[in-house]
């Protein structure tokens, strides 16, 4: 199978009573990309991913995987297709009665790969996920992160064209999450594997996704490249999700913001190349005093800086502030005056 978009979902709906769990969803996952599917719990994310490999059926609409319509296929007809779609799970779903090596070998055994070939592939995969020394261990002896590595190795075993990830890092601590995301990114880069990952954590999307689809109440409310969505979220749900990623003014500082004061407090949102421009120097030139950095932070999105700063401008003069706003707008910097603060904060 060499194919156009790995996933194309044309208006699939699935009802679990009211309101419908999925409503007219169209979704395209371009080959070789990591697409993040984000939404709050109950948004229909897990249902959607289960529709993609036929674990659940849509009530209406078509599911097209790698150019093939799988909507009306029977369980038996779905089997060869599922063998080309790997899936990893929040709770790993490893078989407790099988060793790590046997777990990884299972999809190959199911596909009828002969034992010597299986063993070679398993060794290769355990190397890839860094668990070569755990081949004979049982899952109960592994940590959460190790279990998910086994899950990933198992999903990769039959050389899938698409990897579905259902909250794969949600049961892991932040450090382990980072390591698993790095592994997924490596797999995407080295094997060119298309990944569709479901998550409720915007941080996961920020770290590895190239595109993001926002799901709310069973419908897609916004989608696009990650950098664009994080920099200028349009839908309220996206904004709420993205808010968690940006620094907010600490409560003690926020309490001292008033309509009048010595210095204007501004919030500057930076996204992409503009963040590298000498913005602070430019402000200092206009106001005559260097601005003071009160709070803020920068993140990396797809290799681009993205962040938010809170500055005290060193002046409260409305004319100069208007000039700052005017001069900085062509630099595609989003700037907002929040109020004023005394010069001693």
């Amino acid at each position: 199978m060499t194919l156009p978009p790995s996933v194309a979902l044309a208006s699939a709906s699935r009802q679990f009573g009211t309101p419908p769990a999925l409503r007219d969803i169209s979704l395209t996952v371009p080959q070789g990309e990591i697409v993040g599917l984000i939404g709050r719990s109950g948004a229909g994310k897990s249902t959607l991913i289960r529709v993609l490999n036929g674990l659940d059926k849509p009530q209406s609409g078509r599911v097209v995987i790698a150019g093939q319509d799988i909507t009306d296929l029977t369980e038996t007809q779905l089997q060869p297709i599922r063998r080309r779609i790997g899936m990893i799970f929040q709770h790993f779903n490893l078989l407790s009665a099988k060793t790590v090596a046997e777990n990884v070998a299972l999809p190959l055994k199911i596909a009828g790969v002969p034992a010597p070939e299986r063993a070679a592939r398993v060794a290769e995969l355990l190397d890839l996920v860094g668990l070569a020394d755990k081949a004979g261990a049982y899952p109960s002896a592994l940590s959460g992160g190790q279990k998910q590595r086994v899950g990933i190795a198992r999903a990769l075993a039959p050389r899938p064209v698409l990897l579905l990830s259902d909250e794969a890092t949600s049961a892991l601590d932040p450090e382990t999450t980072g390591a698993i995301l790095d592994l997924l990114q490596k797999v995407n880069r080295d094997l060119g594997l298309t990944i569709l990952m479901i998550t409720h954590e915007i941080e996961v999307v920020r770290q590895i996704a190239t595109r993001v689809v926002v799901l709310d109440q069973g419908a897609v409310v916004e989608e696009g490249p990650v950098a664009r969505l994080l920099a200028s979220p349009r839908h309220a749900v996206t904004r709420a999700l993205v808010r968690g990623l940006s620094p907010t003014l600490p409560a003690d500082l926020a309490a001292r913001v008033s309509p009048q004061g010595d210095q204007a407090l501004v919030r500057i949102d930076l996204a992409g190349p503009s963040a590298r421009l000498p913005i602070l120097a430019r402000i200092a030139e206009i106001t005559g005093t260097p601005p003071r950095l009160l709070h803020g932070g920068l993140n990396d999105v797809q290799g681009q800086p993205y962040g938010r700063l809170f500055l005290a401008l060193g002046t409260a003069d409305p004319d100069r502030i208007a000039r700052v706003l005017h001069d900085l707008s062509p630099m595609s910097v989003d700037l907002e005056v929040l109020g004023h603060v005394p010069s001693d904060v």
Partner: protein
Amino acid sequence: MSQAMFDLMLKGLWETLVMTFVSGGLSFLLGLPLAVVLVITDRGGICEALVLNRTLGGVVNALRSIPFIILLVAVIPLTRLIVGSAIGIAAAIVPLTIAATPYFARIAEVSLREVPKGLIDAARAMGASRPAIIREVLIPEALPGVVAGFTVTLITLIGASAMAGAVGAGGLGDIAIRYGYQRFETGVMLAVVAVLILLVWAIQGAGDALTRRIDRR
């Protein structure tokens, strides 16, 4: 205890062991597939077939409601058909198996139901066929519970085999009834009970050890 009595008890022990393990083995071979069918044909199972499920469930329940001593006599025509005689060890094995199979099937069914749904989903997502799901996931994952349940079944069979004396099958229970109870030989009664206690203890111990060995959860 006289030499004759000792020989009698040895023979009785042998007959009890044959009845227990042969009917136990048969009920394992018949009961496990029955349990699998009861699980996979139920609502949400991998081969949902509710009519078949309810029918089988009904038959299992009916068989389990019949008191063993009644079953023993009621199946005599069937026993004759299968083993050619209604008397003896082979004849006792037929009703014992008929009673133990649905009993074990219900116990195994509980263990099979406890296999997490996520594991079945994972196997389905791999493209596993239904036989592969049963072979690779359902049975291996339920095995510790199935073995523990089989141990319980064997011990229940030891008790039931005592009643098999009614069809002339012999066994330890038969000795206890005829010599210990009907002839007031308290010594024989105590000896039989002691042997049965040891037997149950050994089977339970072996079953527990095996369960621990295969349980990797």
